[in-house]
């Protein structure tokens, strides 16, 4: 092995200018910084050109030349940025380069953008005739057109009532528009009037007609289905029209008509991550957008060159020979081809647009408010000289790599007290915060804000706009009853608890100090959270933020005395707990098992089994779940039987080969036709690997012993917080310094528990608290 000091190199390059200089021997000790979010942040490189080196140091002073700091052992680029502030120091005969890391690329392009607009704020109401009075209801997001008496409508005559201006304002094309169309009165002539929806401008296209009706008809018009990419425009006009072939009609005195266009939602055209416009209907299937869809667009539109023609990108239509042209600048600073974009988040964004210029950084930071376990980072371009036959090797090399990553859920770095932690952990910083809008009737008018310093507070009703981003942004987790993300059968308090569970993932960790690492430490990252796995020993200069560090010698339970736990921490192992999805996920024997609505404890359905009368045991069972020896498991359900009898709930334990080990059960006598809660708690024995839970009627039950089961939960209980989580921290930033071969890790505190795994029951008294 080679011992030649710290094996780092410093490279300055700009291939367009023919610069590829390795400054390693000329630089003083330096430091470089990474952050999460952000990625490569900043560095200051001071160097001196030796006498007689036969180079003109002035050439190093050029703005935007790239600086790479790399590992000479592996050619791995550790940090990369652009020269932003070159300065000479005459007294020292030195150059000092202020270098901005790759994250600065996210502020390069500023422009308006429209992802989705579910307001009427950008609709301009129009009255073609004085007999039509148009208006908009900002509170309820409804456009109205009141047709006054006396006006004579000829067949086919129409009058504009509103025009959408948001796409113009946001420099975006329209990919989908959806709204609910209603109308009434007009002397019984409603059926002869209709609301029409046009795309205008360069591509006048009738997208939709809806006969006036009192019930309301939901209409969605999507690119690729209802109009083509060639018809994309920025204009939408709504009119009211007397249908052709219906003759002339003059509204008599005292008769009026009213047309509503309710809850219009306009979705802007997006790009993929390499800058191509998305023009298929499948990309706009819903009246919301997900985080990863916006991130893809941000990468493609703001970072990878999609801004070149606004809504339609030409990059891929350019012959590769043209891409080789040195001066072609529109490929963007970041390459989308290998961007890692986490798509796990299911939040539904229903309102997101900027009519003032915005940059990628601001959008991405906003999205972190939605997907709270995510961060963005711009990492080095690496040593890619060529990866595709079409790429210009010189251009591609200079593009940074982008990730929209999740914070890991387990440790990535192991450190110990010898690494010098500057601050001990404190429970004082425990803090949950969430803000979300709440929707139960598709009206989008009100929401519930949860803000929680230590103790969850419910019930404050706030406008659905979230304060920090004003009226341009709404994050919304749809809760619909039944179905949606709330399990069927949950309602009221339980639904609220489910909301709390969802919210529990929303953490605002606080900075708790630093650890300074001066030696190789263990790293383990499976790559699932940021697409870049690695396991092995890593040197201080290789440490990055966006990881979890575990301090292995902090006593695991040192903070448990500060907290108490007043409800179970559980992880549900089975699905379709309320039988709202048929019998999916359930098995049975000794009877006929169906989904039934004749009896139910919650929701619309329960599971129902009718014994054959011949079988010794009649039961329903969950699917087998993976188990861990010595962990604690619980099964509980509400049961009802047509006759009074005993019912057993049990958990069976099997080994890895499927061999039965043992079971633990509770038998309860239940009254006839009475819902009764039964429960069993068991500790998994040695070698337990898998097994189901069952509810059993034994003793050859007669066919009359019909049994209903509802809200059947099979769960693993984590009795106490896992101790090692008390010593785990997010690495929010790292700063490596060659002078003493140290890397300072700036830490954020993790929540003590992974709160997202909790299910807090309505009957429980609360959540994690501190005292």
């Amino acid at each position: 092995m080679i011992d030649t000091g710290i094996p780092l190199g410093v490279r300055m390059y700009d291939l367009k200018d023919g610069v590829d200089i390795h400054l390693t021997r000329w630089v003083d000790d330096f430091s470089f910084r990474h952050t999460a979010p952000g990625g490569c942040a900043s560095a200051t490189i001071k160097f001196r050109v030796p006498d007689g080196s036969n180079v003109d140091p002035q050439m190093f002073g050029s703005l935007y030349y790239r600086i790479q700091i790399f590992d000479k052992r592996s050619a791995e680029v550790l940090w990369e940025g652009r020269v932003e502030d070159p300065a000479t120091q005459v007294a020292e005969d030195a150059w000092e380069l202020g270098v901005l890391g790759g994250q600065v690329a996210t502020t390069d392009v500023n422009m308006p953008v429209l992802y989705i607009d579910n307001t009427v704020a950008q609709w301009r109401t129009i009255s073609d005739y004085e007999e039509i009075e148009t208006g908009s209801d900002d509170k309820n997001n409804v456009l109205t057109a009141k047709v006054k008496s006396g006006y004579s409508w000829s067949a086919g005559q129409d009058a504009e009532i509103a025009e959408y201006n948001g796409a113009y304002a946001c420099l975006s094309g329209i990919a989908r528009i959806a709204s609910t169309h209603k109308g009434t009165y007009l002397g019984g002539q409603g059926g002869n009037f209709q609301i029409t929806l046009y795309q205008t401008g360069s591509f006048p296209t009738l997208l939709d007609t809806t006969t006036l009706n009192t019930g309301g008809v939901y209409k969605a018009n999507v690119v690729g289905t209802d109009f083509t990419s060639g018809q994309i425009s920025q204009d939408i006009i709504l009119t009211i029209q007397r249908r052709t072939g219906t003759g002339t009609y003059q509204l008599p005195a005292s008769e009026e008509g009213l047309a509503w266009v309710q809850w219009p939602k306009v979705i802007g055209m997006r790009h993929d991550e390499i800058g191509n416009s998305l023009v298929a209907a499948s990309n706009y299937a819903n009246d919301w957008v997900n985080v990863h869809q916006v991130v893809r667009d941000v990468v493609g539109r703001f970072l990878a060159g999609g801004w070149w023609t606004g809504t339609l990108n030409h990059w891929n239509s350019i012959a590769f020979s043209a891409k080789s042209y040195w001066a072609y600048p529109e490929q963007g600073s970041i390459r989308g081809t290998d961007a890692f974009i986490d798509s796990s988040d299911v939040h539904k964004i229903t309102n997101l647009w900027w009519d003032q210029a915005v940059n990628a950084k601001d959008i991405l930071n906003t999205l972190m408010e939605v997907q709270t376990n995510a961060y963005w980072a711009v990492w080095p371009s690496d040593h890619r000289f060529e990866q595709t036959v079409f790429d210009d090797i010189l251009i591609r090399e200079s593009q940074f790599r982008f990730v929209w990553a999740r914070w890991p859920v387990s440790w990535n770095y192991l450190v110990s007290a010898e690494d010098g932690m500057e601050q001990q952990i404190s429970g004082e910083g425990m803090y949950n915060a969430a803000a979300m809008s709440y929707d139960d009737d598709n009206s989008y008018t009100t929401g519930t804000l949860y803000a929680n310093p230590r103790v969850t507070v419910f019930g404050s009703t706030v406008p659905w706009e979230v304060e920090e981003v004003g009226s341009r942004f709404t994050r919304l987790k749809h809760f619909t009853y039944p179905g949606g993300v709330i399990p069927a059968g949950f309602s009221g308090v339980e639904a609220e608890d489910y909301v709390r569970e969802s919210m529990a993932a929303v953490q605002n960790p606080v900075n708790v100090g630093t650890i300074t690492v001066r030696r190789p430490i263990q790293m383990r990252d499976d790559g699932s959270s940021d697409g870049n796995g690695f396991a092995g020993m890593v040197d201080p200069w290789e440490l990055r933020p966006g990881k979890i560090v575990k301090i292995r010698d902090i006593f695991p339970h040192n903070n448990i005395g500060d907290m108490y736990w007043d409800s179970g921490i559980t992880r549900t192992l089975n699905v379709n707990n309320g039988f709202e999805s048929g019998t999916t996920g359930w098995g049975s024997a000794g009877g006929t098992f169906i989904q039934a609505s004749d009896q139910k404890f919650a929701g619309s359905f329960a599971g129902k089994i009718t014994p054959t009368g011949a079988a010794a045991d009649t039961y329903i069972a969950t699917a087998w779940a993976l188990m861990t020896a010595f962990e604690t498991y619980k099964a509980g359900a509400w049961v009802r039987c047509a006759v009074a009898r005993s019912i057993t709930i049990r958990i069976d334990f099997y080994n890895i080969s499927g061999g039965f080990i043992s079971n633990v059960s509770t038998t309860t006598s239940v009254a006839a036709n009475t819902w009764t809660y039964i429960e069993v708690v068991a500790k998994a024995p040695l070698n337990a690997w898998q097994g189901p839970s069952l509810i059993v009627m034994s003793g050859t039950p007669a066919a009359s012993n019909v049994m209903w089961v509802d809200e059947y939960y099979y769960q693993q209980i984590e009795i106490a917080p896992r101790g090692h989580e008390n010593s785990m921290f997010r690495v929010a930033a790292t700063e490596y310094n060659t002078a003493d071969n140290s890397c300072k890790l700036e830490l954020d505190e993790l929540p003590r528990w992974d709160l997202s795994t909790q299910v807090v029951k309505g009957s429980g008294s609360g959540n994690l608290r501190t005292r």
Partner: protein
Amino acid sequence: MATVVWKFVSTISATPAVTFDMNRQNASVVLNFGETFDISPPAKKRSFTTNSMTDGGLLTSSAYENRVLEFTVSLQGSLTEKAALHRELKKQLSQDRNLIMYTPKAGVINPVFFRTMKSDDYSFTHKTEGGPWHVACKVIAEPFAIGIRVDQALGASVTNNPTSGANPARLDFTGIIGDVPSPPLVKITSPVTGGLKNNPVYIGQRTGRTFFDNWKQAELGTLYTDTSTWTAGSNATGGTPNMIVTTFATATAMGGRLRVQFVPTGGDRDALRGRYRVLMRVGTGTTGSTFKARWATPGGNNWIRGRVAQFTLNLDTVQQKHIDLGMLAHPPYQAPAEIGYSGLAPGIEDMWITIDVERVNGGNFNMDYVYLMPADERLCVVSAATTDAGDGVGAIVLDGPNDMTYGGESTLNLFDTAVANRSLYAAYGLVPRIGGLPILVPGVTNRWYILQESAAVTSTLNFDVHYWPRWLEVATP
């Protein structure tokens, strides 16, 4: 003739031009051993991690400082003679850079050359008009003395095939001399016109280790979804079959297609330890096919998966291509360099690597082998990049002493006496490089691992390798 050689010279050579001999060029100049003569090794700057919980401290990095050569030259003769000699000595001391040639026994011990820096802050003593003038010098020099150039290899042909050729995708060097590692000067040429153009070359290094077969034929691995063995008519390593093909007939999504097992050669289970870039040599049957791929290896209770690389390939019966899937370490968990104080290295388990491949669009995906490029000592990638329509550079030079890479004609003769034959390219001479240039370690076998990114298995590159050994003060006879 003085046995101790101590003189300023113009070049590093066995017979250099002498600019000022400080020891008995004549009777008037004498290296005064009655005063200090100190050419001790340079000090080191070190970084430790220390704390109050453990004794001592762990050395985490060290590097040599510059050194100071202390010596006294005594000048004798008439005042005029002494003044002239003094002027000549000052002239040498004040040079920005200079060379002092040293050997303790001329003709027996090879000379070394200290590369000095401007150091004209000497002490000057004279006591009588007729007596000697004593010039006590403290000359700053680079940490190491340089030995006479060694031409380690001339025209060594390296085949772009780890299984055949005199130098199968590697070069081995033994007999490297010096006290510390030396940066070599390497000239790479291709026997084919334009062979270096836009064809990145990987050069990894491993020294003093038991080497193992760091590639695995794909057709000998365990094949997974939609993947089977296949025989390419040419340009593939191995026998029959010599490749694998993934058709994506049932699944295009990212998933395992191949698993290979790396085992230590000769049973030295320490051989696998280290870091590697995972490369694979691949092709396709359909021009413009785009794929994504990554490595995966078992780690703990889960898989460790590397970064996804996306790449587009062309149908090309000649050129398969190496794709870099990024860094992998083995073992993935910490293992000591030695077990306790036993001096015994722990055995390292075999390495299992699965290659996941996804088809973005296009046709079949073909793979020749999986290759582990060592990445824990030195690894660089150089590319004679140019957009010029011509053939690009004819020679790539890795100038280790100057930490530079540059290019020239294929006829470039780096040490020719005629400067015209040492001409470097101007317009197309840019040779971008990332990573550390190789370095030759004395006393052990040095192996360089060399792959061309896009070239046939029969393609060769020629290597000239020279180095100047680095000595602390005294060369080995």
